[in-house]
């Protein structure tokens, strides 16, 4: 419990900064919706006939940005990117920082097992992610409801944010497992962010080429896309199962690998 509290305290400041970022992104983005509401630029049948790759380059999508919720879907893709960056760095840092800051000797000399330490750190990280999502949900629901009210909206946003939470759990687990196995703490954050960048670049490439379609199973950004959730299709069961499997495997790997590793004191 002490470790959980200690972790929460040390991550307090960064969570506040990220919340400021979320606030700016959501309120700033949605306030633009108010301005363009009247012009009503919905995708017409011409754009609908366009191949997917050209749609991506043109910057049009199946989201109907003339409604507040559709416009929010547009912002949401950037929120996903922010959320993933936050989660992957949180995961990699929470484990790697002890060795980086030379505090691992102190921590390991305490009468707690390594698995206890990981459990506490993971618990703290999940609490932080939960807060991150709660803030995102509250801000989003408030802003979208301000422009367009309805019972549907809040539940749709809850579904989107739920997807974001799963995405964050995946990236958190990627971060912790890399930090658990990597002997050099600095390298752990680099590799974790490298994976994040790679999956992001691939997610763009998949949009451009239908040949790469099958790659979407290894790209978490493609698991919970706003355009499918908002269209009422809900979560794709395949991706939910896949996320759970990835998270469970990587978290297990974190426990096993970290317990066996020689620490860099």
């Amino acid at each position: 419990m002490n470790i959980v509290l200690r972790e929460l305290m040390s991550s307090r400041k960064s969570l506040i900064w990220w919340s400021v970022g979320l606030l700016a992104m959501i309120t700033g983005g949605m306030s633009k919706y108010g301005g363009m509401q009247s012009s009503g630029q919905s995708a017409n049948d011409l754009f609908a006939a366009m191949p997917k790759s050209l749609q991506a380059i043109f910057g049009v999508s199946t989201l109907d940005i003339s409604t507040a919720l559709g416009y929010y879907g547009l912002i949401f893709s950037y929120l996903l990117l922010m959320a993933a960056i936050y989660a992957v760095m949180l995961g990699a840092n929470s484990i790697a920082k002890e060795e980086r800051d030379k505090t691992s000797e102190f921590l390991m000399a305490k009468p707690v097992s390594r698995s206890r330490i990981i459990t506490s750190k993971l618990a703290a990280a999940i609490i932080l992610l939960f807060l991150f999502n709660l803030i995102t949900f509250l801000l989003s629901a408030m802003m979208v409801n301000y422009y367009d009210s309805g019972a549907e909206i809040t539940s749709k946003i809850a579904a989107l944010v739920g997807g974001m939470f799963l995405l964050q759990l995946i990236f958190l687990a990627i971060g912790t497992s890399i930090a658990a196995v990597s002997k050099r703490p600095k390298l752990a954050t680099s590799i974790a962010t490298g994976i994040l960048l790679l999956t992001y670049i691939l997610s763009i490439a998949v949009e451009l080429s239908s040949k790469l379609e099958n790659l979407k199973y290894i790209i978490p950004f493609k698991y919970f896309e706003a355009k499918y959730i908002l269209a009422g299709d809900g979560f794709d069961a395949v991706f939910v199962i896949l996320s759970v499997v990835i998270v469970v495997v990587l978290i297990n790997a974190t426990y096993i690998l970290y317990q066996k590793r020689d620490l860099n004191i």
Partner: protein
Amino acid sequence: MNMFLHELKVNRKSTIIWTLSLVAIAVLFLSIFPTIEREGEEFKKVLASYPEGVLKAVGVQIDSITSFLGFYSYVFLYIMLCGAIQGMNLGMGVLSKEIIGKTAEFLLTKPVARKEILTSKALVVVTSLLITNIVFMGAAALMANIVAKESIDYQVFFMISATNFFVQLMFASFGFLLSVLVSRIKSVLPLSLSTVFAFFILYMFGSVIGEKAVRYLTPFKYFDLAYIIRHSGYEAQYIIIGSIFIVATVAVSFIVFTKKDIHTV
């Protein structure tokens, strides 16, 4: 000169990795081009059934984005994103690593002025980025030669590619300044990554909502690649503002660093 060579050697591995990554991204995206070209051709046939006005307006756009340079300038953004992270990491890490690694004491007791240290560090940043860009341009030109059927205007191609170097320099100098101003940097990557992505999201979102002011705010937007294709030239005012920004940040870094208290262990 010693410091310069030593620093260059330290950065060798990361420069190689970054260069290879940028080349890999370029190869990945450019290999998609033939598909895009074909889909563009097919879509133009679909367009033939539309009224002439639509045909003209959209047809011209289709032609420009499915031309090689049009497609290159679209995907170049993602190359710039990675380039910017490299630049910011390099600029921020080159000084702060002495403090983080507790080698500042060793370095600063050598019979060299702080100005000389800064000069050689700044030169290393420029050299590393220059090497990256030269290799990248060569590889990208080669790839372009392979995928493009029509002949490419290489002057414009290199002008577009060179914008990466300028954007990298802007982020590197900003990182340089931050590393001098921020008193305790624990690790470079989280800070540089969040800064670059903040500007990137600002860019992406700015272009979606068509905000004019964003052009001056985010370095990603300093070069309108469509303008470069049309006029085979840069927009002078942005080059001037960018250069002033670089000179000013480096100058302030010099002034602050020569007077700053450096905390050793």
